[in-house]
């Protein structure tokens, strides 16, 4: 059996599986061994599904032997613990759902199962996807595989770390304000947040429903395209999910960037950014020019207001979405004499500090007398931010920015200062407010050998542009992941 199977990309592994050079069981066992070896130091998984994964791998091998082999058949994936997985507990990294076992699968889980994908486990995250470092998990933080004194980013930090450490070949995350792109950047992997409504959210625990989106983590842009192809598309169980036809994203990878007009927003290169981050992104822009793309300075004038608008809109939606955790039908229940006390004590014991903070802010922003000044104001500014992008895309096909102002920060560094933590999403949050697709790809390292990510942003439903451009950058060889 060839060694280090876990280091393969999905495209490579898929080819070997189809040629029967390796079996899905060998590949899955190799990843499970890798998980056993890495987890004591990373904590990327909340639940490892060894038994289920082995069974799925056996079934995948049967399909492969019969010549029925979709692209993800037999591929070991990590699943953020925010996706309902039938028969496997789904905690959302919260005490309130610690023992919740969903009786159903999320739509994207169903689709991956139908392709024969293998789920090696449920990955760690910030509780209810609220956070930028995975330190808000009730199951302890995930550590960065590049430096275990540093965070993996968040909220999908477990998925990012698992892919970076080769515990699985790809993973699912969710992104509400940067929760796929920021951890991808911190861990040095590819992370794609598709257009709002491109992928069904059915069975995904809701944080902020007008911002949440499902997306993949992968070791290459091609792998991200392969996963997205399976995830995307109409779902009668999510009325916001787009009915647009799903292109074959892998075919969009033409291998060049000729004629692409890349917009560079002046507001995204600001003081306070780690100089090495700016340098790496500027160098990547030069690489693009060398392969036939052009760059043009653009302006997104309301960028500085995005975080303020986000924390009104997102927390308001969260306060409504999290009302369902009442201790009555599922999840934790505290003992109490009457029902109001039961609700209050259950929620007090079940939610962590950051979740309480956001529920409180959101409830306040929606409460009588404050709705117009806060929630409505946030939604109006959101319109201005969307208009900024619309105008910018008249001059360019794609926008390139840093993903985060810094590389991965140290554990505990921002935990006592919520606002500073929120500011780490300054470059990603406006993309969610505007509902656009955005992808993080590795483009360099800082002097501490920590990965730097570049963000590619496109107009709605132009994932193909992002993927083509990302793949073209990878092929220049200007930057090699370590």
């Amino acid at each position, binding site marked *: 059996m060839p060694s280090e199977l876990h280091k393969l990309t999905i495209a490579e592994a898929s080819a070997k599986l189809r040629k029967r050079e390796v079996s899905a069981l060998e590949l899955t066992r190799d990843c499970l061994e890798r998980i056993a070896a890495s987890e004591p130091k990373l904590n990327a998984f909340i639940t490892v599904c060894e038994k289920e994964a082995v069974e799925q791998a056996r079934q995948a091998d049967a399909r492969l032997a019969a010549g029925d082999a979709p692209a993800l058949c037999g591929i070991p994936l990590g699943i953020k613990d925010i996706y309902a997985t039938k028969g496997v507990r789904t905690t959302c990294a919260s005490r309130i759902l610690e*023992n919740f*076992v969903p*009786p159903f699968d999320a739509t994207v889980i169903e689709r991956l199962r139908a392709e024969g994908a293998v789920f090696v486990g449920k990955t760690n995250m910030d509780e209810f996807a609220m956070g930028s470092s995975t330190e808000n998990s009730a199951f302890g933080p995930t550590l960065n595989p590049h430096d275990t004194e540093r965070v993996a980013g968040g909220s999908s930090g477990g998925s990012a770390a698992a892919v970076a450490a080769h515990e699985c070949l790809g993973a699912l995350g969710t992104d509400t304000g940067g929760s796929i792109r920021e951890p991808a950047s911190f861990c040095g992997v590819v992370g794609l947040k598709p257009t*709002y*409504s491109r992928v069904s959210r059915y069975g995904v625990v809701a944080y902020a429903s*007008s911002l949440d989106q499902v997306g993949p983590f992968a070791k290459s842009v091609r792998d991200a395209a392969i996963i997205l192809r399976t995830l995307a598309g109409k779902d*009668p169980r999510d*009325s*916001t*999910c*787009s*009915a*647009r036809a799903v292109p074959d994203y892998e075919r969009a990878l033409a291998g060049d960037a000729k004629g692409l007009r890349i917009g560079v927003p002046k507001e995204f290169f600001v003081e306070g950014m780690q100089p090495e981050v700016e340098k790496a992104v500027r160098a990547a822009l030069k690489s693009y020019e060398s392969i036939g793309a052009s760059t043009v300075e653009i302006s997104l004038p309301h960028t500085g*207001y995005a*975080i*303020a*608008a986000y*924390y*009104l809109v997102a927390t308001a939606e969260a*306060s409504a979405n999290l*009302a369902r955790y*009442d*201790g*009555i039908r*599922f*999840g*934790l*229940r505290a003992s*109490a004499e*009457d*029902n*109001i*006390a*039961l*609700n*209050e*004590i259950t*929620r*007090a014991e079940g*939610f962590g500090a950051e979740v*309480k903070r956001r*529920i*409180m802010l959101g*409830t*306040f922003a929606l*409460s009588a007398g404050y709705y117009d000044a*806060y929630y*409505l*104001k*946030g*939604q*109006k*500014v*959101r*319109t*201005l931010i969307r208009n900024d992008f619309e105008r910018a895309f008249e001059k360019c096909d794609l926008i390139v920015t840093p993903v985060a102002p810094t590389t991965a920060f140290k554990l505990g560094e921002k935990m006592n200062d*919520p*606002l500073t933590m929120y500011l780490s999403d300054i470059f990603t949050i406006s993309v969610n*407010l505007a*509902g656009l697709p955005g992808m993080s790809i590795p483009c360099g390292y800082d002097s501490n050998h920590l990965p730097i990510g570049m963000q590619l942003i496109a107009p709605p439903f132009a994932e193909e542009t992002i993927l083509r451009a990302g793949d073209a950058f990878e092929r220049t060889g200007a930057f090699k992941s370590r």
Partner: protein
Amino acid sequence: MAETKITLEQVRHVALLARLRLSNDEEESLRSDMDEMLAYVDKLNELDTKDVAPTTQVGEAGMPMREDEVTNQPAADAMLANAPSRDRNYFKVPKIIE
């Protein structure tokens, strides 16, 4: 911060609305965190939004229609498997009526 954006009384009222029982320490730290956030979001008032329509929908315009058909099977046991307390096919809660 010169001006206080939110009082302890307001924090207690919001906690009641949100059904969160807070300790005294939590009330104080949430008051201070919310105060900081509300002062931060004040920057939105630099923008004149008198004539700006609020965002009400993000994806594509309109709502798809479908037939109202039953597609799932009755599954009371599966639904109740996660109930913290049940009695036959009911969720059990503390007594509501005196």
